[in-house]
């Protein structure tokens, strides 16, 4: 096992380098660069001026040289400066990542706390009235874009009722406290969690249905163990594992996936940062974020692979 782990970690390095090369290559092929971003289409700019901008960002050097330089700096812990505002990429990512963890972490927690029990509930009552209603509602949640739910939520809870602030992470007139942070967090995390609730509920329901029909549950029932006991001691714990796997796998994608929620609630997270990086052709920022996501995914995948072996001793790595 240890040998396996070591090998997996070693393999990660060339995979990471490959990923960064491909991404760097893609940004090269993608039309336009940061100089093109800087020209407002509503003004004129001469070719010399654009070349000056390119030179300022080192874009006058050939791509392989730029990539090697970037890689060399990253190895030394220097992620460079953001093209668009000159801030250190590391600081920007660090700040935005914190905001994202707060938002997505909360939404995931809400999703698990509400979605899993609902999944258990609907799984136990397949094709009942409740199963249909909750299925219907959850698909409504999944199929409605976050900008619609987000705006509607703001109209009701912020504009009409005045219960929650309309966006941002903190008040502008006093220092943030735990209370103000929670106050700002509730609405966006609830809106974001709608999706998670729906998907956790669905996964949990499927998983429950599988486990309920397995032999050992039937055996447990036949042994005369009470229904509730079977459900909570055997069915649910067995059913929840695969759901956690599915959830764990999707976390890296969630990091940059909350663009609409972040936009509507002015929550400065990774999703909008990433979009800005792409639309601004901000290569250092783009590479920094991608490197972080890649690391995240690779580590998550190693952990899940290890988890399989731990949970199911029949799976062996060698």
């Amino acid at each position, binding site marked *: 096992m240890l040998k396996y782990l070591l090998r997996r970690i070693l393999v990660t390095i060339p995979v990471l380098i490959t990923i960064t090369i491909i991404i760097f290559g893609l940004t090269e092929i*993608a*039309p*336009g*660069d*940061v100089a*093109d*971003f*800087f*020209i*407002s*289409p*509503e*003004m*004129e*700019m*001469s*070719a*010399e*001026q*654009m070349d*000056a*901008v390119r*030179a*300022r960002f080192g874009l006058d050097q050939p791509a392989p040289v730029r990539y090697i330089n970037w890689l060399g700096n990253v190895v030394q812990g220097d992620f460079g*400066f953001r093209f668009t*505002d*000159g*801030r*250190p990429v590391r600081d*920007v990512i660090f*700040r*935005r990542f914190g*905001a994202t963890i707060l938002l997505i972490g909360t939404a995931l927690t809400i999703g698990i706390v509400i979605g899993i029990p609902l999944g258990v509930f609907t799984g136990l009552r397949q094709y009942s009235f409740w199963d249909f209603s909750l299925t219907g509602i959850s698909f409504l949640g999944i199929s409605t874009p976050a*900008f619609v739910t987000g*705006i509607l939520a*703001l*109209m009701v809870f*912020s*504009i009409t009722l*005045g219960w929650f*602030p*309309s*966006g*941002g*992470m*903190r008040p*502008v*007139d006093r220092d943030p406290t735990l209370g103000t942070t929670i106050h700002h967090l509730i609405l966006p995390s609830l809106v974001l969690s709608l999706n998670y609730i729906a998907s956790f509920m669905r996964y949990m329901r499927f998983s429950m249905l599988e486990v309920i029909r397995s032999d050992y549950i039937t055996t447990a029932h036949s042994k005369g163990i009470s229904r509730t006991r079977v459900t909570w001691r055997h069915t649910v714990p067995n059913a929840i594992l695969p759901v956690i796997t599915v959830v764990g796998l999707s976390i890296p994608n969630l990091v940059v996936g909350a663009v609409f929620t*972040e*936009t*509507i*609630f*002015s929550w*400065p997270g990774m999703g*909008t940062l990433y979009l800005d990086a792409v*639309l*601004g*052709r901000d290569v250092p920022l783009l590479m920094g974020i991608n490197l972080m996501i890649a690391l995240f995914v690779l580590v998550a995948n190693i952990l899940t692979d290890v988890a399989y072996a731990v949970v199911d001793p029949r799976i062996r790595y060698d």
Partner: protein
Amino acid sequence: MNKKAIGFLLLAVFLLAFSPAMAQDEGGGGGGTLIGAFDVGPGGAPQIIPFMDTAGRTWLSKIWSPLISWNEDMSALTPQLATEWSANEDSTVWTFNLREGVLWHDGEAFTADDVVFSLELALNPEAATSFPAFSQLDPADVVSITAIDDFTVEVTLAEPNPRLPFFMIFAWVLPEHALNDINPADYQNLDWFFTNPIGTGPFMHDEFVADQFWALVPNPNYWNGAPRLDRLINRYFEDETSAVLALESGEINFTFTSGDIALRLQDEGNYQTFSGPSGVTNYFIFNLRNSAFQDERVRQAFLYAIDRQAIAETVLQGTAQVVPCISPFPAMWPDSSELNDYAYNPELAQQLLEEAGYDTSGNFEISTYYNNQFHNDALAAQQAFLSQIGVDVTPLAQDVPTYNSYFYTGEGWDISYRGVGVNVGNFPFAFYEPGGQPTVDGEPLQGELFPELQEMIDAARVEADSDVYLSLLQDICQFQNEHALEGYMWTATRFGTGSNNLTDFYWFPAAGGGPYEDHAELWAVSED
């Protein structure tokens, strides 16, 4: 009226009578806290560093002052740190007289050295600022920038530039004493702008929270009088919708609003509406390398085919005015009798196409960087009108870098729906000249096809007399209109919406945020 009410009234009168005096003693204040979404909309951009700005100057001008700015409605220039300016006969040597007695936020005196330092920094290729692009000043053409005395600066140019003052609105003045030992190459990465920036503007830095807001406090020494506000805050929003929602929930006092939103809020009655011309003309630019568009009858047919008036009135809800040429301001148009209004006439359009032998089997892509409801609707209507005369076009939305990378090479596009900011001081001559944009590869796109236009442009560029200059612009307009050089559509009115408790607040939809004179020192927010 009961006693209590009278008491309150007396108290109110008392406070009103004394508060300005008291406020003066404290060096401003008492006017409440104004929170605005100053960097939402086309004129905004959450930009922090002067000379790296491409927009967002409404906010930057609260902290830093330029030498000169537009006046309130962008009809003329108005003094800021420069009080007077004049040129020698051929407009190669410009002298700027500076305001005396101005203090930096840290109490140091402002002098000509600060101006020289700032301009040299802004033109230093190592600092790679956006100033040369916006000021259209090629650093190589600037012979010298010298301080004649403490309050006089002389700028010597290699080429005549009669409209230099119009570009000095981009010349922010930075404190030499705080920044003189920086390495120009590090200019964009300075922490100073985020931690303790100082300027000469009406407000001083208080607190900057990245991605959230920037809070300012009044500058008691502001040369035009201490501001009334206690605090001025710019809140950052990712898009207009979230800012409008914040306005409706009462959390902010002001934001830019699109035409349809502004009209709805105006109808609700709880808001003040600010509006003005965008100064931006929306038009089709035809890629004249495509032989189909070299025949002016084809271009004219496009104009006749599209009911621009109907689109402006219905789709754009009357918030846009049809324009005859690239200039959005009537002052730059000749008499209407000299202009063709290209009134909606599909039969004539069809006839022109036939005369020109236009091949209707093709399909042209109309590339655009616009991606909002206003322009999407306009494009849908334009597309439908064109299809009625047998011209098939397909709108193609692109992000700005993609758009620019094609547009400026002149390759890979047929027609572009775009906007260009035009004003008396800043006419996009380069668009019509060989070597100018969008002809970076040196191939003339339009210039050499129209020698007559070229002559007018050459004359206008160096014309120092403003009346002659204006009449040349009108001639250019007439030429553009007659030959349908481009497919001129409309210029939109842009809006801002503020809460009712704002007093003496002023906003104008200046392109790039100006800077323009908005008398921020007078702004206040009433308590109720």
